């Protein structure tokens, strides 16, 4: 299991529980059952887990949207009840519930204002981020007219708006197209280089790629495993190899060699072009 890096912690979650009361009889439903997790500053953490495992609930607690039922949660050295802590974090919520009646730029103005930015500052930074996520030409379009993928891109722009030290991304790849994935990868790379801490949740292992330093697995409201992505997602002796420059007729030789060394070939398919290349060729 990979150890937490030395240095100050960005998130210290100790025994966090969260329960809700629902239904006519106000029945208690446990969403988190004691989450213990440490995230170092500058680290990129992937949070994996099936639907309903509690990833979004934990992220909402860390973002200060809700308050935990029990346990200790320290974010950037303080509590999220403190406005100064919230000023230093950015959050992309799961279902992008931004005001649909506002245009993209107007919504960034609003969010910038809530983050304590001046109007000019929010406009300048918001414009640059919209450009970055490929929505510059839709700056005046109301969010209600955005597709799910466009809303996700907008969500990325608002999470980076006030240059936070800690960024929480709840299912950032849901609904993103290939180009959007590329934008996200670039943003994550830059954040990592700038020393920004990133927590990203997903239930698709491929989303974590090479971008995550560590991967935490949450099941039924508890962290069950933490480690390096390769360590957790890889199996000894199983490899995925990309090959370039091999003509199709010679594939049979490769398959034969694999059989000869006792390996089982699981998948061979043509690759090398990204979907985004196809989109560009259509334009």
């Amino acid at each position: 299991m990979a150890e937490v890096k030395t240095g100050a912690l960005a998130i210290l979650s100790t025994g966090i529980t969260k329960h809700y009361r629902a239904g006519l009889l106000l029945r208690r439903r446990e969403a988190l059952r004691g989450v213990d997790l440490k995230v170092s500053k500058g680290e990129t953490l992937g949070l994996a887990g099936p639907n309903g495992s509690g990833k979004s609930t934990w992220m909402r607690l860390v973002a200060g949207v809700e308050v935990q039922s029990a346990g200790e949660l320290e974010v950037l050295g303080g509590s999220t009840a403190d406005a100064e802590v919230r000023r230093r974090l950015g959050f992309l919520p799961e279902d992008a519930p931004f005001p649909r009646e506002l245009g993209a730029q107007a919504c960034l103005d609003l969010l910038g204002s809530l983050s304590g930015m001046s109007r000019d500052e929010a406009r300048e930074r918001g414009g640059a981020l919209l450009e970055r996520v490929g929505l510059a030409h839709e700056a005046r379009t109301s969010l209600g007219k955005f597709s799910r993928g466009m809303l996700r891109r907008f969500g990325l722009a608002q999470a980076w708006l006030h240059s936070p030290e800690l960024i929480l991304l709840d299912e950032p790849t849901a609904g993103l197209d290939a180009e959007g994935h590329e934008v996200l990868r670039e943003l994550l790379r830059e954040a990592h280089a700038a020393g920004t801490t990133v927590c990203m949740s997903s239930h698709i292992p491929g989303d974590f790629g090479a971008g995550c330093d560590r991967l935490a697995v949450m099941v039924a409201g508890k962290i069950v495993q933490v480690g390096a992505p390769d360590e957790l997602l890889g199996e000894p002796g199983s490899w995925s190899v990309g090959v370039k420059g091999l003509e199709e007729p010679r594939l049979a030789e490769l398959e034969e060699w694999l059989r000869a060394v006792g390996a089982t070939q699981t998948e061979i398919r043509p690759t090398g072009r990204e979907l985004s290349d196809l989109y560009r060729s259509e334009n």
Partner: protein
Amino acid sequence: MRVPLMRLALRRSLWPALLVGCLAVGWVLWNNRVGAASELATWSRSPGILRHAVWMTGILVSGPLLLGRAVAIGHRLAGADAPWCASRPASRLGVLCSSWIGALTAACVLMILLAAAAELGVGTQVSRALQPIGPAELTPLETSESGIVSFELEEPAHENAAVLRLPVGLIATGGPSARIRARLMRTAGGAFVERELIVATTRPIELDLPAGEGPLRLELERVEDGALVLVPAKRAGWWRVMRHPAIASLFLACLGFLVCAALLAWALALGVWMRPAPATALLLAVAIALWFSGGTLGGWGVAMEHIAGGDIPALPTLLGSGLAMAMTAAGGCLGWWGLRWGARS
């Protein structure tokens, strides 16, 4: 305060109430114009009735919509909007106050439009508008003459008092109406005002204040047999004459501002704690109860009665204004508490 958040709340509150309110008030004005051609309807088209029709339509149509939207805003702040709102450094109280100011601005816009529509509907029709300024203490006097009832009154405390208004009741025992001679005079002698009138409805008797100073004497004399006239002496009051009747809408808007401030604060607060439909229903039930009740905070129905009578409602008292502000603050605190501690989680 966050100006973009105020604008968002204004936008969310205003549009449905404005659209439906404009259609309803437009229909009332159009109906009034069409009705003006009818001779049968002429008697009922007094400025007060027209003003009352426009205001009542606006309040009944736009009021519930405005409250419903404010409740929905509160509900969203604690629910759907929380991820982008609560994760920002802006304080919960600031977020709530900004939303309240936005919703209150929408209410003000609606009231200004209603006032303008009401006064445009009334047009240039001239009428004398009165405004209540204080009660008149009537002390019954023993009189030797039969058929005459006398009361003694103190000099009105308010220097602008110009008219004594005496509400009456009617019991149609000896006929459908009664002929009365009313006389208001200075006890020390001198000036007096006398009117002979037929009392056929509960419309109050009005007598101008005679010139001079000192205590007054009011005499009511039955001129001929007819219905029994009741004089509830405790409800008599002094009124002043307002130069511009159109000011009625302004006074009503001032009263409406205080009422809206308190109701909208509670709408946001209840929205934070409850589902929108029951919260709106609860709020409307309270508003209706206060409408019909008397007292310092309630009795708004009385103000609308003044409007219908062509009069001007009294300005809110200091105690009433203070209570309205206290209710506003209490609603704000309840909403803030809900947002701060996660009312629905």
